[in-house]
């Protein structure tokens, strides 16, 4: 007498026994990337630029750090915001710093925002087949002193914008910016140019909203305001849950 306990899973639709599918050899690969979360945002005004990022560094369901800002000061007139894989963010900023120094020493002048953007594009594309998993946004002042924002994809495609959001909550922030700064989908509204104070208030509100709904965004907000006087930093607390 052979007694076997069979569960319902062993029976198929018709009631006959199913064939036993064993899983077979599965390949487990090491992934060189990790996703550390974070959101960055940049807005260009008439004579200023704002680069803002949250300061939470996470992985999976855990938080690595509540105080890891993603804005990196490159020159007196340019700030880079990068989010994505933190390891690549660190390496990329190191490489950019070195290249800035090299340029300064050979050309005896500081790199302009536009030049940094073009250089970043080539640096990212040089790793086309093993990309830097980083979403970059550069904010700064151009040669005429007007605000400039350059947004990138991980392999170096870039364009100049008036405003751009990147990182984990970018899909939540970008439509709000399109509406409030780009005046999209609004009829009969006067296109007032954005003042620095209104822009800063908008950035704070936008991040507060992002922290409500995106689990990767929160803890604190670091705002870097770039004007011809220099770079001013502000820290605003956000939800910590």
């Amino acid at each position: 007498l052979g007694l076997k306990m069979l569960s319902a899973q062993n029976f198929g639709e018709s009631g006959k026994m199913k064939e036993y599918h064993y899983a077979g050899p599965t390949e487990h690969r090491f992934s060189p990337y990790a996703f550390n979360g974070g959101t960055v945002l940049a807005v260009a005004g008439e004579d200023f630029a704002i680069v803002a990022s949250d300061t939470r560094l996470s992985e999976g369901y855990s938080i690595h750090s509540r105080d890891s800002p993603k804005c990196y000061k490159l020159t007196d007139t340019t700030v880079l915001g990068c989010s994505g894989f933190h390891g690549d963010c660190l390496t990329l900023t190191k490489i950019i710093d070195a290249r800035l120094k090299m340029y300064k020493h050979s050309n005896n002048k500081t790199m302009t925002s536009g030049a940094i953007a073009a250089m970043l594009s080539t640096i990212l594309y040089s790793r086309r087949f093993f990309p830097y998993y980083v979403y970059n946004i550069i904010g700064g002042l151009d040669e005429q002193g007007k605000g400039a924002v350059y947004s990138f994809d991980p392999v170096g495609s870039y364009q100049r914008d008036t405003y751009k959001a990147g990182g984990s909550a970018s899909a939540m922030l970008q439509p709000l910016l399109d509406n409030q700064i780009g005046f999209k989908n609004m009829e009969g509204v006067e296109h007032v140019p954005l003042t620095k104070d209104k822009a800063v208030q908008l950035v704070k509100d936008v991040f507060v909203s992002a922290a409500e709904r995106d689990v990767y965004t929160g803890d604190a907000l670091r705002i870097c305001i770039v004007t011809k006087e220099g770079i001013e930093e502000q820290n605003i607390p956000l939800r910590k849950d």
Partner: protein
Amino acid sequence: LAFMSFCLFDFFVFRNSILESEASKVGFSVPTARKTGTTICGVVFKDGIVLGADTRATEGMVVADKNCSKIHYISPNIYCCGAGTAADTEMTTQIISSNLELHALSTGRQPRVATANRMLKQMLFRYQGYIGAALVLGGVDCNGPHLYSIYPHGSTDKLPYVTMGSGSLAAMAVFEDRYKTGMEEEEAKQLVRDAIAAGIFNDLGSGSNIDLCVITKGNVDYIRPHDEANKKGVRLSYELDPEPVTGDYRYKRGTTAVLSKVVNPLDLELLEETVQTMDTS
């Protein structure tokens, strides 16, 4: 004579699981169920049970509900916290609550926590883990306070303190540090509050507020919220004059463009008018 005997439960065809696997082979992705990515916990104290839960429901890594209720009613003396798939915890607890009420009427006695536990585990085992409900069941009955943790595949543990959900490790760390047998009510409430807070602040799947449910013999305190640990746009530091936190984003009339307008008048004729009085006594 080759003889095969098999366990006598009803012949269940897991039609949906077959559908899912066949659909994914063709390329359709099954809609992701909303998971609660939760921190829930329970503790036995001197006079009864304290259950606690956070209030965040997530869909992937986006918050779907900032203030959902995770402590479910089973019977007047039994409540159940649920983690895992939101629909599964909601429906499972409602089904068992309904069956338990009928059972109580049939026996003529107050329902026991062990009965609810048995019913839940037998249902979850029947579905072989496909119902993603991880529960913390607690209540006070004629035999005293009881606390169970119930896993999606149908196993249960009867313990003095339990945690479940993605934030269970954070909450358990607090329990293992400070749990004592025979605590007073305030001490137990504070312990559960701190355990849930640990989950809320250290686990990305949990957040918002802390709900508590204190069950003692003859009395239930459903405290929702017990602690609003996170408010939108409000600083945690208690300054005396808070500055206005948000800008004004109201739209003026006419901001949304009306592209075209069509008016269809309905020509109606009054044929008959009757008055029917309502009995409002």
